[in-house]
């Protein structure tokens, strides 16, 4: 291992953990969802970093180039991005309904309203 060779992964990990932290430490539901997005988007950076080759070009066949970056992580992440936006949409729909029913999108307020019943 060496520092110069791994900084990309480490920054990705830092970003992931920032997202993860937002998810578990914040009580606001929209903020949680933003954190979740941050978390998964940073995982995408990790995947794409794994596929990069120094001096290579985008994986589209062309006579001028010999070396291409690995296209497989790209394909996987395309799928994962779609999964991410799908989760966001469902989460937002739930949040909207929660706001209509509880009048709040803060976890604490919601808990208090449930317990007061």
């Amino acid at each position, binding site marked *: 291992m060496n520092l110069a*060779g791994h900084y990309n992964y480490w*920054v990705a990990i830092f970003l992931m953990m920032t997202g993860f932290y937002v998810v578990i430490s914040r009580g606001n539901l929209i903020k949680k969802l933003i954190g979740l997005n941050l978390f998964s988007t940073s995982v*995408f950076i990790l995947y794409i970093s*794994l596929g*990069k080759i120094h001096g290579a070009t985008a994986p589209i066949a*062309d006579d001028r180039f010999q070396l291409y970056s690995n296209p497989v992580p*790209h394909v996987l992440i395309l799928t994962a991005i*779609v999964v991410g936006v*799908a989760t966001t949409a469902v989460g937002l729909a739930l*949040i909207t309904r929660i706001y209509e029913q509880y009048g709040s999108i803060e976890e604490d307020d919601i808990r208090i309203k449930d317990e007061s019943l």
Partner: protein
Amino acid sequence: MELFIDITLLTFLCITAMAITVIRKLFCAVMLASIFSLLCACLFVTMDAVDVAFTEAAVGSGISTVLMLAALNLTHSREKRPPHQPLVALLVVGVTGIVLMYGTMDLPVFGDAAAPIHHHVAPRYIEQSPLEVGPPNFVTSILASYRGYDTLAETIVIFTAGLSVIALLGIRDRYAGRPIPSDRSAMKDYVVLRIVAKMLMPFVFLFALYVQFHGDYGAGGGFQAGVIFASGVIIHSLTLGRDRTLKAFPHQFLRGLATVGVLIYGGTGLASILRGGNFLDYSVLAATQLKGQHLGIFLVELGVGLTVFSIMILMYYAFSYRREP
């Protein structure tokens, strides 16, 4: 130079992420998340992942942000101050991060061409796919053919998300069969915006079509095209009034279109079975393998495009019509 851009982008990403954690105005947080996605997209370009960058830009900083803003409009836009110091959260995150760092120590160096990841399965895609499948864009070949089944599932994921949003929020079709009332757009007074939007729209649609049908050769494909097309319609709706959009694309029509998209994809797979191949084996669809693959990829990308387009607009409707009398 490459290293410099890389480091700059990573720095900006870190700053944006930190800003998201501290900022309590949700509107700002959403916009920062959008910027984060855009920066990611740039980073993906530097790492040669052009298709991913395209999608991240369209989805992460485009559609996700639109949906977030729409939801924000329906709810509350300020976060309460966290009541306590989240020490447990810090601990959990710290441990997770350290474990992950430990794991990356044995990963190959970034950009190393000798890493095992580049030497087992990937070479065949790069060497053989132009001969076996056809499209010069390896990502398209893998996405639509080698791993076409993942993409079918992905299409159904987005289909499911659309249905879930409709089931949870519902869409009230107030003008079913009735003439729409006069234009009540919020942006009616912004003449410049309306004219620019109107002028842009044909280009947006043209670009979407280009992305749809040119995905074999460059970056793009059905998914990105669907998102761009939907964005065009959303611009139309924002500037010219959503009731007009609802008339042009009634929600029952879009629901049907989304279903048809999924069925085109699935049907292409079933057609391969009927013609004696395995599910999604496009080679049997036409006289030669390459022609068959070409036809198959065309059809499934079409299916993906239709489904994504209609689901994106349906979700937009669901959020934007929620608080109606």
